[in-house]
């Protein structure tokens, strides 16, 4: 082969390699960018006065006087809307019956849309469900709802062989010639005054309970539950894993039993996570009754089994990487075997063990399938630490699944879903980052 061709092939090869790394990076960016962008939208957004009012009334955030002043201002701006509505009702009665029916229908729709936009009408009983007690809290959604008030969404089915086409008919059209016609331009023009949108940083998203099935409020119970579950899994898995690793690397003589143990560990690592979920339900709850229903405890134990092989493997590798001279030196000074392992080998292996465990901590935090039947609920209070022994908890991973598939208002609470995914990924990456930093720190300390 010519040198030229060989060089070309060499370059091509490097090109392919670098392309694949670039593809991988692209995957990561495509995944993280929308989630980060929209996830941050759960915390930073343009909030309306309704949001501030809700936040004050339900969670006690914000300055009472300011909010009340603002709310009074908004109320003044809204007053003409309701006034017009009431006065027009009398006018409707005078219309001819056919026109009246059409307009009544429209009015009904407008009323519903207006309720969603600005909250319940004044002087009507307060609805029970929280989501009906307030208008739109987010300016972006408010604009959509405004659109519903201003336009009626209709479908043009004129060509029956093709799917219909969506058309937006301005509702103003139906009211041409009546006093209500001016309602629409007024609303459109003054909507900002009625809702007073303001840039908001709702950091309490991370520390508030949720209200009304995640319509409002934050995700604190979920975050707390996730942390409980992950830490609980650690409490079971880490001591077991480290002791097992010590046995395998320091005490065990290679033989049939040990290779059998290793095969079992490999098998455990390969068990699909959903099978762990089934096993957790069947064994921990229904057989040995660690708790009398789903609980954080049962979930943690199940997760612990899931991460046990990873912990053992990383701990074993870390222990094996400790130079033999340390063991010799310690034994040479007259230390017993256990003492050498405990005082010299383990501390030296700590960075490796730590990295492995923190990474599996991240894995435990993100797993969903094993906790569906053992620990996760859709609604529940944030738990005190001792309640974890007997009570189930909401957890980020399960609630993400739950909210994006089973919630009755999937689209209305997209921002909460994105926020949860973002927070979950952030927690897991934070764990990993901690692992990297901790490893570097300890390495530095050990190396001097």
């Amino acid at each position, binding site marked *: 082969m010519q040198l030229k061709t060989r060089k070309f092939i060499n370059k091509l090869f490097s090109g392919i390699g670098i392309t694949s790394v670039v593809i991988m990076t692209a995957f990561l960016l495509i995944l993280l960018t929308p989630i980060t962008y929209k996830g941050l939208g759960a915390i930073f957004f343009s909030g309306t006065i309704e949001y501030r009012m809700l936040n004050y009334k339900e969670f006690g955030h914000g300055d009472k006087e300011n909010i009340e002043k603002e709310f009074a201002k908004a109320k003044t701006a809204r007053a003409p809307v309701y006034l017009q509505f009431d006065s027009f009702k009398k006018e409707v009665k005078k219309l001819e019956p056919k026109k009246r029916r059409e307009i009544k229908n429209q009015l009904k729709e407008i009323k519903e849309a207006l309720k969603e936009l600005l909250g319940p009408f004044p002087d009507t009983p307060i609805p029970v469900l929280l989501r009906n007690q307030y208008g739109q809290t987010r300016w972006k959604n408010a604009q959509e709802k405004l659109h519903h008030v201003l336009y009626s969404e209709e479908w043009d089915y004129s060509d029956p062989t093709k799917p219909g086409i969506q058309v937006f008919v301005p509702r103003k059209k139906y009211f041409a010639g009546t006093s209500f016609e001016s309602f629409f331009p007024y609303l459109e023009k003054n909507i900002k005054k009625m809702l007073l949108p303001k840039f908001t940083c709702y950091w309490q998203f991370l520390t508030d309970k949720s209200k009304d099935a995640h319509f409002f409020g934050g995700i604190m119970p979920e975050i707390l539950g996730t942390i409980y579950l992950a830490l609980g899994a650690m409490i079971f898995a880490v001591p077991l894993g480290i002791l097992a690793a010590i046995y395998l690397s320091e005490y065990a003589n290679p033989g049939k039993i040990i290779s059998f143990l290793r095969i079992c560990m490999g098998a455990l690592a390969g068990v699909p996570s959903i099978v762990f979920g089934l096993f957790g339900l069947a064994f921990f709850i229904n057989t040995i009754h660690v708790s009398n229903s789903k609980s954080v405890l049962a979930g943690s134990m199940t997760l612990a089994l899931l991460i046990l092989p990873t912990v053992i493997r990383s701990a074993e590798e870390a222990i094996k990487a400790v130079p033999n001279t340390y063991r*010799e030196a310690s034994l040479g*000074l*007259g230390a017993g075997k256990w003492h050498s392992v405990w005082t010299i080998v383990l501390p030296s292996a700590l960075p490796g063990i730590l990295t492995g465990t923190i990474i599996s901590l991240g894995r435990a935090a993100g797993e969903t399938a094993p906790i569906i039947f053992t620990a996760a609920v859709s609604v529940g209070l944030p738990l005190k630490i001792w309640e974890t022994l007997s009570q189930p908890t909401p957890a980020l991973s399960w609630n993400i699944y739950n909210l994006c598939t089973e919630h009755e208002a999937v689209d209305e609470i997209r921002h909460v879903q994105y926020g949860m995914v973002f927070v979950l990924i952030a927690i897991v990456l934070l764990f990993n980052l901690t692992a990297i930093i901790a490893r570097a720190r300890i390495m530095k300390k050990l190396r001097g």
Partner: protein
Amino acid sequence: MPDTNLIIEEKDAHIKAEDFSVFYGNNEAVKKVNMRIPKGKVTAIIGPSGCGKSTYLRAINRMNDLIPICRADGAMMFDKQDIYASNIDVVSLRQRVGMVFQKPNPFPKSIFDNVAYGPRLLGIKKKAELSEIVEHSLKKSAIWDEVKDRLKENALCMSGGQQQRLCIARALAVQPEILLMDEPTSALDPKATTKIEDLIGELCGDYTIIIVTHNMQQAARVSDFTAFMYEGILIEFGITKNLFEKPREKQTEDYITGRFG
């Protein structure tokens, strides 16, 4: 076979090997060695690499136990006791027979903790007592002046020569009777080597020192007695001066004159 019994009398012997062999699997690394090692003197073991000198040395405090396929045969007498008997407490053996390794191997802990490691094993907990022992040991291994202001620092920050002297201090802190040194200077530069050799000179008398080295000059400089091993067999044992000046065996002569090895 040389008869060390001619040179060392029974009462002077601190360690006595009798038909002592070490096997790696089926391979006999040390072959039926008979050797008396005198108390309070420095004994050097020389020989080409792979001659079994390190294995022999490590056999004295049963360091070879760590290698699963390794087993010993014959008797190694210490304190009128065969240390390969079945009921031996290896831990207390090793507390009395200290060891310094080829590569400096301080623990990744502070200098103080390194030296205090042994005493703590022996149940000394009081800070004052420990400090006293640490200072004493460090002084004895001639490193106190260099490290007295940074006892809290990580031992791995020190230079190689300092590390090795720290390891000696660490071994001394347990107050052993015998100090085994397995090529203690092979990883060090000449200056550090000199310091270690001086140290050995100072320590002899208080301790029985056995040093394995491939460096004949070193053996000649520091030791009172020298043993030459070749292919697992103890070829010659004698007073250092005699052995180097007029070796009795042909192989010894070939080795010290550099014809092989």
